[in-house]
């Protein structure tokens, strides 16, 4: 099925999106390989949804190219192989769960059964409910049912677990893993590192419209989970600081040293035991937002 000659499920080349003078996405390139789960991770406003919309042909690009399985994203050839869960889309509130799933199944040449899609979305009890009567989490799962009804080879999940409680999120992650196990290519956006870590083979970190990091979940966690040890010191050089245990990187500007470390306890102990003179010591960071800022800087 997935020979090497086969076109990539997703390819976005040098995509930019500008509104007047505001650049939302700037020269962003992205690929997803067959069977791969890729997470697009970043804070709100990073350009994740805009990027996904460009991959899908739902936003015109200011520059760049997008292909789905080698086809134009809006072509029927691309659409029948793609299932999509969009963050900002509504559903007709007067239709029943069963009806909208049936409607979507008829858009695709080889859909799975309605019961199967509804079960995968954990909505079997709600089949006869009108959409207006669903909770936010249930509605979110209904979008998932609509995304998988056409038995797509490629799934786009834009912030899939927004509105779900911790339990529902855990179960939902299992459903996504099942899709992965069945060989589907999955592109998901999230602003939770935890979610990207739980699901993805590869994480692409975006902030302010550009890619700031890319790697396996382990690599990304190592990069973003670190702390910053900051202190003033009159006399030391950066190389000495970098040699301290646990230090990934160190900078020194105007007698202020910044050490980046994933093991701040080890680093601080070594620092205080070293001959380096240390004033105004502080340890900061650890939040994802801080990490995005540091990655962007």
């Amino acid at each position, binding site marked *: 099925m997935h020979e090497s000659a086969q076109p990539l499920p997703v390819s976005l080349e040098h995509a930019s999106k500008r509104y007047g003078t505001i650049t939302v996405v700037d020269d962003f390139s992205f690929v997803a390989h067959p069977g791969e789960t890729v997470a697009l991770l970043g804070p709100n406003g990073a350009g994740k949804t805009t990027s996904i919309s460009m991959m*899908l042909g*739902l*936003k*015109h690009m200011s520059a760049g190219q997008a292909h789905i399985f080698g086809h134009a994203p*809006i072509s*029927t050839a691309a*659409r*029948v192989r*793609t299932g*999509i869960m*969009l963050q*900002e*889309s*509504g*559903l*007709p509130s*007067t*239709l029943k769960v069963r*009806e*909208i799933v*049936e*409607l*979507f*199944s*008829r*858009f*695709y*040449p*080889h*859909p*799975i*059964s*309605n019961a199967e899609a509804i079960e995968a979305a954990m909505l079997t009890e709600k089949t006869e409910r*009108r959409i207006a009567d669903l909770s936010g989490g249930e509605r979110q799962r209904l979008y998932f049912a*609509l995304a998988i009804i*056409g038995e797509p080879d490629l799934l786009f999940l834009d912030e899939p677990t927004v509105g779900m409680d911790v339990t529902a999120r855990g179960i939902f992650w299992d459903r996504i893993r099942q899709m992965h196990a069945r060989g589907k290519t999955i592109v998901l956006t999230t602003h939770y590192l935890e979610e990207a870590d739980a699901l993805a083979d590869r994480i692409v970190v975006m902030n302010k419209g550009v890619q700031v990091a890319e790697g396996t979940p382990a690599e990304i966690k190592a990069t973003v989970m670190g702390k910053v040890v900051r202190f003033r010191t009159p006399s030391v050089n950066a190389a000495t600081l970098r040699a301290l245990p646990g230090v990934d990187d160190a900078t020194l500007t105007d007698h202020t040293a910044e050490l980046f470390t994933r093991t701040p306890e080890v680093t601080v102990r070594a620092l205080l035991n070293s001959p380096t003179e240390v004033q105004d010591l502080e340890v900061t960071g650890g939040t994802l937002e801080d990490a995005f800022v540091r990655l962007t800087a």
Partner: protein
Amino acid sequence: MSSTTTTPAALPAASARRGARSALLYAVYCEIMKTIRVPMFAVSLFVLPAMLFSLFVLPSVHETQNGVSVGNYTMPSFGIYVVMMAGVFSSGIPIANERGMKWNLLLRATPMKLWTYFTSKVIMSLLIGAFAAAFFFAFARITGGVDLGMTMWLKLLGTLMVAMLPFIALGLLIGYAVGPQAAAGVANLVVLPLSFMSGLFIPYDSLPHFAKQIAPYLPAYHAGQLGWHLIGAGDDTSVAVHLLWIAGYTAIFLVGAIWFYRRDEGKTFG
């Protein structure tokens, strides 16, 4: 209602064709369900015309108007009013709402053909219009003893379906031109004065002078004349001319709808 699962051995082209056809049928079913599950819509299509008929026509149902009984004369008038409401409201307001909540965006991410979306809405409007008009006729038959004879009822219903086309196009235009908050207001602002000025509520001869001047340029006037000609109460202009006006207005409203649709596409996908 059963699932459309096909065997993997099915020819792709054949199954795609089958899929497109059944998608349209089911989309029509969904459109009808969406429409009739809105209580306000049923009230304005079924209750309001019956109420207006009871208040203003029933007391004088056996008097004469344009050579026919008032009861008979008001069947085309009210019939046009009903299908005009059905045409403008059933397609226009849902489209404005669906644009507002970005349902159209989700649909555009599926392989659904654009024509399926529009065709299903037009077919739904025609069916709802026919049903509402038939309901009104039955009401007039029972409460006012108005009887055109089965052949004439059916001919009138057929005429109403043709006369409804410009108003479906107008509904599409309003649906793409204005937002979800304004759509119902704008539709009312169009339908009510149009009905009055075209002689649907008050016979043309009894209209104020200014309305008489304007009426022959309005689509609802020509729609009404198609019906009045059918029951022998038409004006001196030929049916072909009235049909031409209906065709012209349908074309104009469709061009307007397409223009606003493109403008909306630019906003949504820009």
